């Protein structure tokens, strides 16, 4: 009986306050993403001009980008395991890999945005074929563009924040501030980065594939 009471008392399993704070933030942030994606779905079903994603968006390039972000989750997980095992060098190496993959993801997204906003000849042709028309694909061009830039831009800001967070943890890691008994900050960073990956899975499917 006493064991049952103990389980009931540990609904959060003595989670460190920093980690719990990150979880609460992520749950609320997830609701923000949900609001954006639900709004886009509502506008789509309500008859807004909505071409097939492949007609306008660069799906193959974004698919490659998706693999980069997914792989960065794996390297981040290895960084956490390394710090838990006290392997400082391995921890730093995997963190640098994560930073590089995240930066690559963001660079490709910026490249895609640049092409849309400047309006290359290919984009003009795609817009004409899709029925949207116009020379550019900018946030204010139409509802579809607004939803695209809203969802991917909000996610991009999260990736950018994540890169700053990784850089901060990397600097602290280089000074040897994390040990097998003191790694809560690395764990909160890991949670955040996986959340960014998780949200991209939703954004990629809803915005690029459906």
């Amino acid at each position, binding site marked *: 009986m006493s064991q049952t009471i103990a389980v009931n008392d*540990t*609904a*959060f*399993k003595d*989670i460190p306050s920093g980690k*719990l704070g990150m*979880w*609460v933030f992520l*749950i609320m942030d*997830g*609701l923000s993403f*949900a609001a954006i994606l*639900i709004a886009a*779905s*509502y506008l*789509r*079903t*309500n*008859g807004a*001009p*909505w*071409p*097939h994603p*492949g007609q306008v968006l660069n*799906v193959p390039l974004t*698919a490659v980008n*998706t*693999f980069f972000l*997914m*792989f960065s*989750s*794996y390297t981040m*997980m*290895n960084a956490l*395991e390394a710090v838990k095992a006290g392997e400082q060098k391995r921890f730093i190496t995997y963190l640098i890999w994560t930073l590089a993959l995240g930066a690559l993801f963001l660079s490709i997204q910026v490249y895609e945005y640049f092409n849309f906003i400047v309006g290359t000849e290919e984009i003009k042709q795609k817009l004409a074929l899709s029925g949207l028309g116009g020379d550019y694909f900018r946030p204010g061009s139409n509802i579809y563009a607004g939803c695209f830039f809203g969802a991917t831009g909000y996610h991009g800001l999260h990736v950018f924040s994540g890169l700053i967070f990784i850089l901060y943890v990397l600097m602290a890691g280089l000074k040897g501030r994390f040990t097998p008994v003191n790694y809560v900050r690395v764990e909160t960073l890991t*949670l955040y980065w*996986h*959340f960014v*990956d*998780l949200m991209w*899975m*939703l954004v990629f*499917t*809803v915005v690029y*594939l*459906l």
Partner: protein
Amino acid sequence: MQANKIYIYVAIWLSMFTVLELSIFSHLNWGAWRTAGLLTLMTSKALMVALIYMNLRQEGWGLRLAFFAPIPVGIYFLLFMLYDAAYVWRS
């Protein structure tokens, strides 16, 4: 099983599901089935990341409840709004 092995398996599964998503996107034109397939794969990938990478399966039930409780509300909200919409899913 060693943690590192599990993580590499998850990475492989996530990649395979993404390839499957892209195949459905490029080759399948079965309307509702296509949408259902893509949504199923998306949910499976998201669950894998939440439960294994974010380690939610080993956290306390309070945290799991806090994480999963808003999801049915979100789905209800979406269906509630779609009920009022014009039912046009352009693709």
